[in-house]
């Protein structure tokens, strides 16, 4: 899943470089949302183990 986030970031950089602003922001937001989901998954997993 982290690899997918990095792919989205690469797509964001390429879109911004080629001046596709809205596309860049879309990829960026997707990457950010996936990061939050992954972070939540990590935190909730640990909480389950500790509880």
């Amino acid at each position, binding site marked *: 899943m982290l690899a997918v986030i990095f792919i989205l970031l690469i797509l*964001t950089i390429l879109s*911004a470089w080629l001046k596709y602003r809205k596309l860049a922001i879309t990829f960026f937001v997707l990457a950010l949302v996936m*990061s939050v989901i992954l972070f939540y998954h990590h935190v909730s997993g640990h909480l389950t183990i500790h509880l």
Partner: protein
Amino acid sequence: MESTQQRLFSFLNLIEILGIFTVLFLAGLFQLIYHELPCPLCLLQRVGFIGICIGLLMNLRFGPKPAHYSLTLLSALLTSWIALRQIALHVVPGTGSYGDPVFGFHLYTWSFILSTFTLLYTAIVLAFQQQYSMVRPVSKVITFFTQLCFVLLFAITLLNGISTVLECGFHYCPDNPTHYIF
């Protein structure tokens, strides 16, 4: 013609980008030289730092806009939460730590300090209204440095992506990675 204010705000953005580049470069250096494989939370912090850079680079590419600063702030906030989570995991005595300390602090502690500083710095810089009404185009020097930053950020992100695939594949990363799976 480029105004002094335009140069100043471009310069401030560039300074912040270079600071974040240094962090990402040092993290990569630690991984390669000391063979310290980044944990999932460390990789997520790198994602956050790359996100900070992208927001600022969009300012240089498309001109300063509150939306770009917003992306930077969101990335910095996420990075600080992740770093804080990692600090919390190791804060209890006897729970150990991840990696070697640098100047007395572990990398995740530095990550928290830097992301919090980025939050503060960006919140101050975005408050200056004049930058949003500036006229494009910018000077050749700023354009050159913007292109250079794009090349560097692309290379850093690509290398981190390759390293992540080598370490975790396309699945969830192990909590305490000890070797590359490929």
